């Protein structure tokens, strides 16, 4: 079976500046894919291209191996996007949610669909009669999502669906997403900065950085600039006065990425390894990893490390305890600029 | 100090034919009067006089002029020139009026229901036409479908008649312009002319300074004097459009 969506050699420019450059990306039908990355890394641009809402400067989008363009008669109505800044039509909530059904030629009987969509996003049915400008920020965001859910699309792309949404509603949206996949077989691609929400929901997560897909995750990213000491070692000083040492960076401003597996909890430095001391701020369970993960704050910076079960002795790792991390500078990799 | 210009309200025919532009420098030279004019319909020209917005009037609607003077709006109405009206129509002449006298022609048009285009704007020409209908056919055929009331300037009215193959009554000056505009071979030809009834009398009237304190009656009188005087009369006689005399001085009969 072909992947539902596939990008090849896609590149997108704004005013001549390349903001997206993806050689190859496939999304299989029925999966939930997360999209993570810092501001400006190209998540929204990628979602617009994948949803055929915009055309990439160069490259091809395939839908089940067929190249497709915006307004493709077949694909157009099966893929839906919740843009980051969704526009609400200057009408009632009811009209907003039923709009997509109406333009699909569906006749009347929107009432049930609209009520069902509102319930999915955790809004009271009485909201249907409200006007677009009588909503709070989070309510508007949820109405926009409801308008997409009402369409029961084959493929749904969500750009920051939980921005300015309360925690209870974020859980509600999570349930709606899982329901969409289960009941309608919807394939989902979701960009979000709510890392734990995303981790919890998605089958796979794609990390974007400067318009490129990263091979690793973006757990511990340290921005430049990097200094050099008189032994020609590169380092950066953290806010609490500790130093972190790195291999020679490609550029003094490059960003270093330290995979959580690189940071060991064995306190004593051995050979060429270096150490960092910090305070545990939390321990998590993340379904993408077999081991629990621990957050350690060093000065201003929060590091994520893996906790092999054998390392757990008593309550040593509970929040508030001080621990020592060790790492090999050579294991630190660099992000392309 | 420089003299204030003399404001004249007049009808479009004197302006459109170029008569005033021809006379203004002569007036200036002879009397020192700086002549400015507003060319509108006769009715509006009389209204401007009534509202004291002009010092002197040059119009051609004798009945209305007399009423204007009798109402005390104007003084010293003096006739000083005329031109003549003509009946024009398509070369084919469906009502067969060519060469007939005015009343016969009007009756023929009425009987044949040939298209007749009226100015319909209360101008001097229109008033003349209405008078002729009453005189020759008892009533104005106001609502007849062949009787088209244009409500426009003379030239536009002739154009409408031309487009609709109709007859109309016009002053000779405008017809000469029309003829020239169409390269000397217009679709409408002169069919009736030279009848005594078809005289188009122009006069000059001073605005009454008793009603209008700012009216410059002295200058107005001066202009009138010049127009009825030999110099003015000769100038009028010498004015030509397309090498044809348009206006005929007749101040002598005052």
């Amino acid at each position, binding site marked *: 079976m072909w992947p539902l969506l596939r990008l090849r050699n896609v590149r997108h420019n704004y005013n001549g500046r390349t903001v997206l450059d993806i050689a190859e990306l496939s999304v299989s039908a029925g999966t939930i894919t997360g999209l993570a990355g810092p501001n400006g890394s190209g998540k929204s641009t990628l979602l617009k291209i994948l949803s055929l809402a915009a055309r990439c400067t160069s490259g091809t989008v395939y839908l089940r191996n067929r190249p497709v363009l915006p307004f493709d008669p077949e694909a157009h109505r099966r893929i839906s*996007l919740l843009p980051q800044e*969704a*526009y609400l039509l*200057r009408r009632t909530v009811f009209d907003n949610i039923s709009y997509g059904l109406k333009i699909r030629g569906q006749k009347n009987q929107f009432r049930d669909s609209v009520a069902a969509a509102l319930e999915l996003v955790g809004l009271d049915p009485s909201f249907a009669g409200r006007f677009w400008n009588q909503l709070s920020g989070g309510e508007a965001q949820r109405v926009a999502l409801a308008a997409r859910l009402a369409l029961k699309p084959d493929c749904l792309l969500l750009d920051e669906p939980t921005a300015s949404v309360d925690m209870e509603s974020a859980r509600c949206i999570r349930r709606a997403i899982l329901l969409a996949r289960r009941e309608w077989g919807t394939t989902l691609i979701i960009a979000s900065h709510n890392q734990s929400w995303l981790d919890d929901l998605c089958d796979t997560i794609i990390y974007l950085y400067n318009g490129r897909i990263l091979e690793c995750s973006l757990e511990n990213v340290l921005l430049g600039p990097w200094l050099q000491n008189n032994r020609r070692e590169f380092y950066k000083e953290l806010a609490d006065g500790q130093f972190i040492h790195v291999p020679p960076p490609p550029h003094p401003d490059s960003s270093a990425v330290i995979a959580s597996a690189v940071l060991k909890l064995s306190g004593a430095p051995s050979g060429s390894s270096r150490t960092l001391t910090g305070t545990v701020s939390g321990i998590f369970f993340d379904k993408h990893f077999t081991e629990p993960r621990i957050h350690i704050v060093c000065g201003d910076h929060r590091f994520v490390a893996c906790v092999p079960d054998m390392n757990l002795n008593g309550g040593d790792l509970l929040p508030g305890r001080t621990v020592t991390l060790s790492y090999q500078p050579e294991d630190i990799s660099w992000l392309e600029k | 100090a420089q003299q204030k210009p003399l404001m004249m309200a007049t009808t479009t025919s004197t302006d459109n034919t170029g008569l005033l532009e021809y006379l203004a420098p002569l007036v200036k030279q002879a009397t020192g009067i700086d002549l400015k004019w507003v060319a509108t319909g006769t009715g*509006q020209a009389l209204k401007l006089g009534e509202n004291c917005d002009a010092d002197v009037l040059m119009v051609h609607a004798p009945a209305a002029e007399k009423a204007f003077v009798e109402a005390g709006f104007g003084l010293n109405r003096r006739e000083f020139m005329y031109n003549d009206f003509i009946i024009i129509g398509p070369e084919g002449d469906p009502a067969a009026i060519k060469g007939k006298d005015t009343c016969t022609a009007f009756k023929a048009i009425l009987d044949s229901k040939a298209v007749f285009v009226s100015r*319909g704007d*209360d101008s001097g020409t229109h008033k003349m036409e209405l008078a002729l209908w009453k005189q020759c056919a008892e009533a104005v055929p106001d609502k007849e479908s062949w009787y088209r*009331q244009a409500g426009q300037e003379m030239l536009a009215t002739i154009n409408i008649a031309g*487009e609709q193959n109709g007859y109309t009554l016009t002053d000779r000056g405008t017809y000469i312009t029309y003829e020239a505009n169409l390269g000397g071979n217009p679709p409408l030809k002169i069919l009736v002319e030279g009848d005594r009834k078809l005289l188009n009398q122009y006069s000059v009237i001073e605005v009454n300074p008793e009603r209008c304190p700012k009216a410059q009656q002295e200058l107005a009188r001066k202009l009138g004097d010049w127009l009825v005087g030999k110099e003015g009369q000769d100038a009028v006689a010498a004015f030509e459009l397309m090498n044809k005399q348009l206006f005929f001085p007749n101040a002598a009969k005052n």
Partner: protein
Amino acid sequence: MDFILEGIAKAFVLLLQGDPETYSAVWATVQAASMSMTASLLVGIPLGYLLGYLNFPGKKGVRTVVDTLLSLPTVFIGLIVYAFISNRGPLGEFGLLFTLTGIAIGQTILALPVVIALTATAVESLDRSLRPTLISLGATRMQIFLTSVREARLGILIAAITASARVLTEVGISMMVGGNIKWHTRTITTAIALETNKGEFATGIALGLVLLAIAFVISFSLSFLRRRA
């Protein structure tokens, strides 16, 4: 001054006593304006939408041209239309001269730049996230057009009102192309011009008020489209 008061009184008389000449002119005005507004809105709104919506090289130039055409003098349009539909013109055989249809053709030319320029501006002022939102909901190009027009309804409404005001008040075209023929092509504005020329200022004022009454009926009925924007 008196003629203003007199005119106001006369306006009531004309309207309430059903003066046939006035009603004939009202009817001619309404007929010509309906034809020209229908044509200019049908053509102008899509063109204005495209002008506001698309980005193409030379767009700025096209906008400048449209803006310039806002200043087409009515007599000028009248002359051009006259040249085409006069008996000696290329379209003479259709007999459009001195008809309301002829007037409507000229008025359409007059109204089109207004509709296009104001629609383009209204569409340009739409939120830039409207388009991706509509696409993402599955709207076709035609549906995007229709919905954008509805979202820009305030701006397009005022475009329509401004254009119809321009059409209702123009004299030059009606005079030149229509001929101001009583009972046929005499519109309110040509009647006003005529009455004023005749020195019947009060009647001119009265007819002006009649025109304003028509305009009021139009803007009042359209104002309901303006609710809840």
